[in-house]
């Protein structure tokens, strides 16, 4: 191969389109006869619907249809359970309760849709929503996740005895025996509160039923278009070939856009068929705070048993996970928390028990990190506290407990979110730690800078935390690669794209195999008419699973090219090379055929094609990893705390990241930047404040604080490459890594900055106000 694109820091193919406004988003899809949808959403967090009066809305000029649950007839069904609980965990309890298209008898969170209005414009639709009267007999709201499980709490799902949605115990070794041998046991209660992903583009759907072609086309801000297509076809009684779901450019996914099936996703296609008109619903920012799924509420009672020299003997934690009103996503998040509490550390004995609580709050599904944060927060905090007690540095205690390179594959002996045993495929943690310490200047900071700045009255502190990220889980993805007559190469894959740089990183993989310019590789993702096998973009799996499928298809196409070229050029395959968009004989560059010409020869208009030969230079391949591959890394930062205002400024932020072979470091850096921004937001800015009635008090960007460009520090990024043995490219996922350890490393540094009288910080998110309370008392 003449050009090695793989591993190169090249600019993104898609950026020109995206930056000049030429990338299609759902709200760009318009039809002249299109109608607009708005929803009447519950004002109450919990209660029985006694009466719904839509007559005034129906009479409003410009209103075309008003639907309640009753109008849906048999189409009204609870949504599917997207991820069932792992069948292999013994004694697991799981109460499947999934969201309904429109609330019928009961409302379970503020924002739950009750009535759908279809009108000539969104303005009229919103006016008509104002005409609707819904009488609700309010019930006490279940908000606090610890109280939610109390026996005297009202039940959110009336057919259950309590608000416990699930109960899972996983263990390894014998924790109780380990405690007997321990020199030190650190016991704490740790809390993590809710936030929202706040993608720049809210959700949106355009559904167009074409009665003449009998085809339904849906443009949807989904991370999983194929699953939506298959589900819609089944629900609507159509053939899968009658339904086309297109996930065009999407302004950020972060997980919540994969919660198929959102109520709106179920309702718009149905109503479009009913009315025989295209319909559009674009979620506005206010709706997004209620209608899109959220995450992060957990409370952990955790303990860590150690020897005097800081070696972990065992970890135990009991935690409650806030499931929200419905749990369509099964146990993915708490299983991730369970797995990630083990971190990169050898933990011989482990006991982990969790309960999922139904609450009268918006639905919870994975959001970037997806429970990994919580596990990492628990173990990293306990290690910090143990280090203090044992007079070890935070670095030394981590170093002493890292799983050693020769121990891989390392089996943690519990079940992961992909139902497979939690086995770390590969890893080498100390080099990343060493690099991070070096980059942040740890020794110099502790010995020189910090004492000097403290003498000036400045409160500066440093933090270092490690983490692992389970990535790249199955089941599979696929791709079809075609060399076109023009010499351009097209790649079709089923996964959706939300800004990850797929148009470039996937093109790099293909360009290397086929010897073409990366700009001549044209990628189509997220259109079910182009490719209709696959699962979706989530769990940091796009590059790993789709990337390897694309690589495999490219290898197949390369074989076809060589075989045909060998005939045409009358040369042995091993004497041929692919470069500059052509196949040529090594050392005889004038004996060559352009790939486009070869593609035409492979698809002749006359003459016979030999039996067994497929037309064209095309191949379709799939890749399905047996289990996920484990990325890892270390974050380090320096902060300064203003002792008067408790505002915290991040002075320096270092990330050393190991996701195996890096396809494009530029894109990877971007992933990490965004992840850290979200992680710091989670640590110090973003918190959803629900009152005791389940009303969200800060449903706007005025009061829900995202860190802006002014608040996110510049980051220095280092890479370590420990290849994954689980896929041919040796790559691991990277999508969530930036966000995962930001909170514990931030907290460690703030504690360090506050010095000897620092409070123990056992909760996330913080704020200047909360820090003030922790330091000076409430």
């Amino acid at each position, binding site marked *: 191969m003449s050009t090695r694109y793989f591993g190169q820091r090249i600019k993104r193919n898609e950026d020109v389109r995206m930056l000049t406004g030429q990338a299609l988003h759902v709200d760009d899809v318009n039809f002249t006869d299109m109608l607009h949808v708005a929803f009447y959403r519950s004002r109450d967090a919990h209660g029985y619907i006694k009466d719904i009066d839509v007559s005034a809305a129906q009479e409003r000029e410009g209103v075309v249809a008003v639907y309640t649950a009753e109008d849906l007839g048999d189409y009204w069904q609870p949504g599917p359970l997207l991820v069932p609980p792992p069948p292999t965990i013994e004694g697991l309890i799981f109460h499947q309760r999934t969201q309904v298209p429109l609330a019928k008898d009961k409302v379970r969170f503020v924002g739950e849709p009750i009535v759908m209005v279809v009108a000539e414009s969104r303005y009229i639709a919103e006016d008509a929503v104002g005409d609707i009267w819904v009488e609700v007999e309010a019930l006490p709201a279940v908000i606090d996740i610890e109280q939610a499980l109390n026996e005297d709490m009202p039940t959110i799902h009336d057919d259950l005895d309590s608000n416990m949605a699930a109960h899972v115990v996983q263990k390894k070794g014998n924790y109780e025996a380990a405690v007997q041998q321990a020199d030190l046991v650190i016991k704490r209660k740790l809390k993590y509160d809710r936030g929202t992903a706040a993608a720049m583009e809210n959700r949106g759907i355009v559904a167009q039923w074409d009665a003449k072609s009998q085809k339904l086309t849906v443009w949807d801000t989904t991370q999983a278009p194929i699953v939506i297509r298959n589900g819609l076809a089944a629900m609507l009684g159509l053939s899968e070939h009658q339904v086309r779901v297109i996930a065009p450019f999407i302004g950020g996914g972060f997980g919540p856009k994969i919660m198929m099936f959102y109520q709106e996703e179920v309702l718009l296609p149905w109503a479009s068929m009913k009315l025989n008109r295209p319909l559009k619903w674009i979620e506005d920012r206010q709706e997004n705070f209620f209608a899109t799924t959220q995450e992060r509420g957990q409370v952990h009672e955790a303990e860590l048993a150690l020897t005097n020299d800081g070696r972990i003997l065992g970890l135990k934690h009991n935690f409650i996970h806030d499931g929200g009103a419905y749990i369509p996503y099964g146990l993915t998040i708490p299983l991730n928390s369970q797995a990630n509490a083990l971190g990169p550390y050898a933990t011989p004995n482990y006991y982990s028990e969790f309960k999922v609580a139904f609450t009268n709050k918006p639905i919870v599904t994975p959001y970037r990190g997806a429970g990994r944060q919580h596990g990492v927060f628990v173990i990293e905090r306990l290690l910090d506290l143990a280090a203090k007690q044992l007079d070890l540095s935070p670095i030394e205690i981590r170093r002493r407990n890292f799983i050693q390179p020769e121990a891989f594959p390392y089996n943690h002996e519990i079940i992961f979110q992909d139902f497979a045993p939690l086995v770390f495929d590969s890893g080498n943690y100390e080099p990343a730690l060493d690099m991070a310490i070096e980059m942040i200047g740890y020794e110099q900071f502790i010995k020189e800078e910090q004492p000097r700045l403290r003498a000036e009255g400045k409160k500066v502190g440093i933090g270092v935390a490690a983490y692992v990220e389970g990535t790249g889980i199955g089941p599979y993805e696929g791709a079809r690669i075609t060399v076109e007559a023009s010499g351009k190469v097209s790649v079709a894959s089923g996964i959706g794209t939300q800004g990850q740089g797929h148009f470039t990183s996937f093109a790099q993989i293909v360009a290397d195999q086929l010897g073409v310019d990366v700009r001549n590789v044209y990628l189509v993702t997220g259109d079910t008419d182009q490719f209709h096998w696959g699962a979706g973009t989530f769990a940091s799996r796009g590059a790993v699973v789709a990337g390897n499928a694309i690589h495999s298809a490219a290898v197949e196409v390369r074989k076809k090219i060589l075989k045909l070229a060998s005939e045409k050029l009358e040369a042995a395959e091993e004497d041929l090379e692919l470069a500059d968009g052509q196949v040529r004989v090594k050392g005889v560059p004038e004996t060559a055929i352009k790939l486009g010409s070869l593609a035409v020869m492979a698809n002749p208009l006359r003459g016979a094609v030999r039996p067994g030969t497929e037309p064209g230079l095309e191949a379709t391949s799939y890749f399905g990893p047996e289990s996920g591959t484990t990325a890892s890394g270390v974050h380090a930062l320096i902060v300064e705390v203003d002792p008067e205002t408790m505002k915290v400024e991040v002075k320096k932020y270092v990330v050393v990241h190991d996701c195996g072979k890096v396809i494009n470091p530029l894109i990877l850096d971007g992933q990490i930047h965004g992840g850290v921004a979200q992680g710091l937001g989670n640590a110090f*800015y973003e918190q959803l*404040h629900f009152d005791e009635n389940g009303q969200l008090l800060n449903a706007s960007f005025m009061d829900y604080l995202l860190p802006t460009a*002014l608040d996110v520090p510049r980051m220095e990024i280092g890479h370590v490459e420990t290849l994954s043995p689980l896929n041919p490219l040796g790559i691991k996922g990277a999508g969530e890594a930036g966000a995962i350890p930001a909170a514990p490393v931030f907290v460690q540094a703030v504690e360090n900055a506050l010095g000897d009288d620092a409070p123990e910080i056992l909760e996330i998110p913080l704020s200047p106000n909360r820090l003030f309370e922790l330091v000076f008392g409430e």
Partner: protein
Amino acid sequence: MKPPPFEYFAPTTLDDALDYMADYGDEAKPLAGGQSLIPTMNFRLAQPEVLVDLNGLAELAYIRPAAGGGVSIGAMTRQRSVERSPLVAEQAPLIHETMPYIAHPQIRNRGTFGGNLAHTDPASELPAVATALNARFRAQSRSGQRWLTADEFFVDLFTTALEPEELLVEIVIPPLPAQTGYAFREISRRHGDYALVGVAATVTLDNNGRCEAARLVYLSVGDKPVEAVQATAALIGQKLTAEAIDDAAEIAAAQDIDPPGDIHASVTYRRHLAKVLAKQVLAKATARAKQE
């Protein structure tokens, strides 16, 4: 997040605008920069039946020397123009210093000086600063005009003394007395956010270097700008030493204000910040007064 239907008028002269205000009275809302009104309408929290758009009134966009000294600012002057005005910097340096705290440049490009004051958001910087500077407000209606002091103008939460048919047309900032220093500071979560607490101060020294007069006006601690009168009373006749300033700041935080608690700041934290900020602005204003 779409507003309900409303009628819209876009007059090009003040007289026409005042006619619309007279005709529609209570149903009408004047639209200036729209940085508060439009979001409020999109949230359907405000549902005016009539909007009278003042953006065509070029006659209300000016900054010029005021007759008796100081500066006179037309109500429709963009905040960014005030921020960049050399005349404002010279005649009303406290306003010049405060402008960058107001949201972000994009918002200041649209937001108007008069619109901000007439909106009377208790978390807004300009009402507090205007109070500290003894600004005067000219209100006009079809039947005439009247002048109001800051105390008269700011009535309550989002409420001014303007009658439904009146428009705020001009604000006059008098010059600072001799040997007067000034300062403004605020604490917000992120740059450009509404302040958790903010405070403006002026300090006038007599010829012996003692405090002759002082103003300390807070934002975000009540329903309107809150003046710390007990704190400043304690300063009169004093040498403004660090101790004197500390004492005044303590009085301001403990006695002069009764701040609310919310999701961003508890009552205790607000009082703490009020003290921290009072110290800072009084010290800075005193230092500046000494340089005069």
